[in-house]
């Protein structure tokens, strides 16, 4: 798949979706595989630099067990191992409003043909 960014510098005007200012490894690519791998790499980098064990929000869980950054990193590693099975020839880039609802759209029926 083409169209997911070919910029090689991590500047503020980069067109690569998952480049961050603290990224140590950039994944620059033009395929859906590159795109999916960049997701895991971005979050893994953030975890390894900034994440600390964290208490769960009591509203969402009654468990006292803390969330460990390594748990997330392990899941990201597992996600990477699935990537090759999630890519196909139909992975053309698509622009789509992911949360279309009536509050963000205005139709003018009188102009319909």
């Amino acid at each position, binding site marked *: 798949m083409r169209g997911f960014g070919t910029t090689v510098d991590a500047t503020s005007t980069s067109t690569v979706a998952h480049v961050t200012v603290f990224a140590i490894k950039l994944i620059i690519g033009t395929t859906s595989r590159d795109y999916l791998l960049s997701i895991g790499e971005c979050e893994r980098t953030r975890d390894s630099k900034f994440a600390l064990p964290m208490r769960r929000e009591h509203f969402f869980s009654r468990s006292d067990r803390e969330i460990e950054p390594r748990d997330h990193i392990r899941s990201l590693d597992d996600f990477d191992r699935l990537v090759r099975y999630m890519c196909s020839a139909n992975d053309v880039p698509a622009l789509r409003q992911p949360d279309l609802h009536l509050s*963000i759209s205005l139709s003018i029926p009188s102009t319909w043909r």
Partner: protein
Amino acid sequence: MTSILDWQRTTVVPYTIQSGYPRFLSNDENCVSRVRDLDRLPHNFDSLDVDGKESLQVGHTKRLSCQLFVLANAKYNRPHFDALLQKVNPLHADVVSRAGFPWNEDLVAFQNALLDIIGNWERFSTDQPSPLEYSAEEVLKWRHEYTEWAESHDSLEAFRSDIGINEED
């Protein structure tokens, strides 16, 4: 000009991940199992009391809206209609979106999405085994945590709905 659409937060990503139902046309994210026979109110609808009518009307509107969305795609957007028929695409979209969230309590939903992939592995590959394996104890723990998380999440959504706000506002 015939319409205006707010494209804020929209991104370009692979088609198989983008495809799906708008939430308000998703029949509460249950989608619909058939589209040929449009959903109808029961024959005894007029004889029901007000509360009974309202309940049936709401469910009917949700199912019919979803069916019409699918049919509109079949007529005007065939590639997206074909993508909607691929049961594997929602699994793709879910695990990819969960992987992209910053690490926090959403880890529970991310782990559950990974389990869903393994549980539907035959849709990903018929000739290769899943590259992921988890112990029965881990699976049980993650599913339990997810159930707890999902119930709380639904409650939070209900609270928000009751007071007229949502995450997007």
